[in-house]
């Protein structure tokens, strides 16, 4: 441990929890009706992070590659779940696509960053691999959910435009150019904004953490730059892979829409006249 690090005690946390009580009190005073949710969220923060801390301490102590890999697989499953949970529209196969996307961005971006850029040895060193992959997954999740939301919304609400293009002989790629373009743009705007504002509007969280932990600022900056680029790639890969996966399931190669596979989260499949039609033996 770095000698500059000031350890936090349980009593420090109790003092910090007063801040949450202030927020909840504000909600009561202003009748926002959020106090229950604020308290539940605060408890969840403590419990979830506490469990994570316990797990990480074990993983760091055990120091076995199989444990690190298992931990990463577990993170991928939950990141994929979260990405789908955020989507208001879903389609058959969305879970598989989300997990596949997460795995691709994890292996690709995570592999390059840990092996080539940072040069972690051994390759599974949990102190590096787990936080880096965690950030990659979090950003892939953003890319996935933003791109997916926009893409599925376009296919659902602007179906007539896609069909119009197809009706004149457009290929699948031609008919989906606009929905894919807007989906990818939407998926990439937040990380672009984050890179633009980095260090001016806000100190990036990881850099702040490293500086608090005693890392020399320029070293923290170097890490942050790597991380920013890594996150941009994770975002982009998330948005691209999920968009291609979704369009492949919802529009066939020959340009037949399979939007009966599209449904609203928590709602029934198939709405409207055109969608209620099922195929039958001709």
């Amino acid at each position, binding site marked *: 441990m770095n000698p500059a690090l000031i350890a936090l005690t349980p009593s420090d946390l109790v003092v910090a929890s007063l801040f949450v009580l202030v927020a909840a009190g504000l909600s009561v005073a202003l009748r926002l009706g959020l106090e229950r949710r604020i308290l539940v969220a605060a408890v969840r923060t403590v419990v979830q992070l506490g469990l994570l801390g316990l797990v990480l301490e074990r993983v760091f102590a055990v120091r076995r590659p199989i444990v690190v890999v298992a931990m990463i697989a577990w993170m991928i499953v939950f990141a994929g779940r979260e990405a789908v949970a955020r989507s208001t529209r879903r389609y058959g196969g969305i879970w598989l696509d989300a997990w596949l996307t997460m795995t691709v961005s994890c292996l690709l971006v995570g592999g390059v960053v840990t092996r080539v850029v940072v040069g972690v040895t051994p390759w599974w060193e949990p102190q590096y691999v787990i936080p880096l992959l965690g950030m990659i997954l979090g950003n892939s999740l953003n890319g996935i959910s933003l791109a997916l939301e926009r893409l599925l919304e376009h296919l659902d609400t602007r179906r007539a435009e896609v069909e119009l293009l*197809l009706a004149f*002989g457009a290929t699948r790629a031609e008919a989906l150019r606009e929905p894919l373009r807007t989906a990818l743009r939407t998926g990439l705007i937040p990380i672009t904004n984050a890179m633009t504002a980095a260090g001016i509007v806000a100190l990036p969280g990881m850099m702040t953490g490293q500086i608090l932990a005693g890392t020399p600022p320029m070293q923290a900056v170097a890490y942050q730059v790597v991380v920013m680029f890594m996150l941009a790639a994770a975002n982009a890969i998330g948005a691209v892979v999920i968009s291609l996966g979704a369009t492949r399931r919802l529009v066939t190669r020959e340009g037949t829409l399979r939007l009966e596979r599209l449904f609203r989260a928590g709602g029934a499949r198939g709405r409207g006249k055109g969608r209620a039609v099922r195929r039958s033996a001709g």
Partner: protein
Amino acid sequence: MLRCGPFGARDGEGRVLFESAVLELPERSVTVLEGPSGCGKSTLLRMISGLLPTTGEEIRELGGRSYGRSELPEWRAGVTLLAQDAPVLPGTLEWNLEWPFRLRAADGRAFPRERAAALLEAVGLGGVAADREARSLSGGERHRLALVRGLLWDPPVLLADEPFSGLDRKMAEVCRRLLEAFAARSGHAALVVLHDPIVDRDSVRRIRMTPRGMEVA
């Protein structure tokens, strides 16, 4: 000249709308597809165009050439659906006529600008600015725009789903003549679903849809 089918569909409750529907269109003809509301006319048109999933066992023949499943985009370029409600793409009126000619399916054909101006004039859209946002057009204007787009594209077959809705009688008559002139040429045909049978019943071929198949009336 065109032959395709058999198609079958069921409604949302699983009842059979139609079965074994096979459609044949002779050259130089306008065929009106008739049937009660909700009998699946639009569905059949969309199945012919291959926009709705089908069993994949149907045949699609046009002008002596047979089209397989993987050739659906080419099929649609030649058997083009003018969909119900006349959708438009975001963009100007002019762009909405021009975009098909940017598709791979156009095969290098140039946008017939002069004919576009003449057709717009004929359907009473000559006075609308070419840079007007197409989505701001009224329903009737969109239907005329859709018809002009189809006529400019000039495929062998047009499938038109209620192409004259929202038009007054006089304008519907103008559009009907344009569609008939299109279909009267060698190597061309049209299949039309009409809500309001304004077409002179004796001058066109009529097909009645029944749950068991198609009956030429």
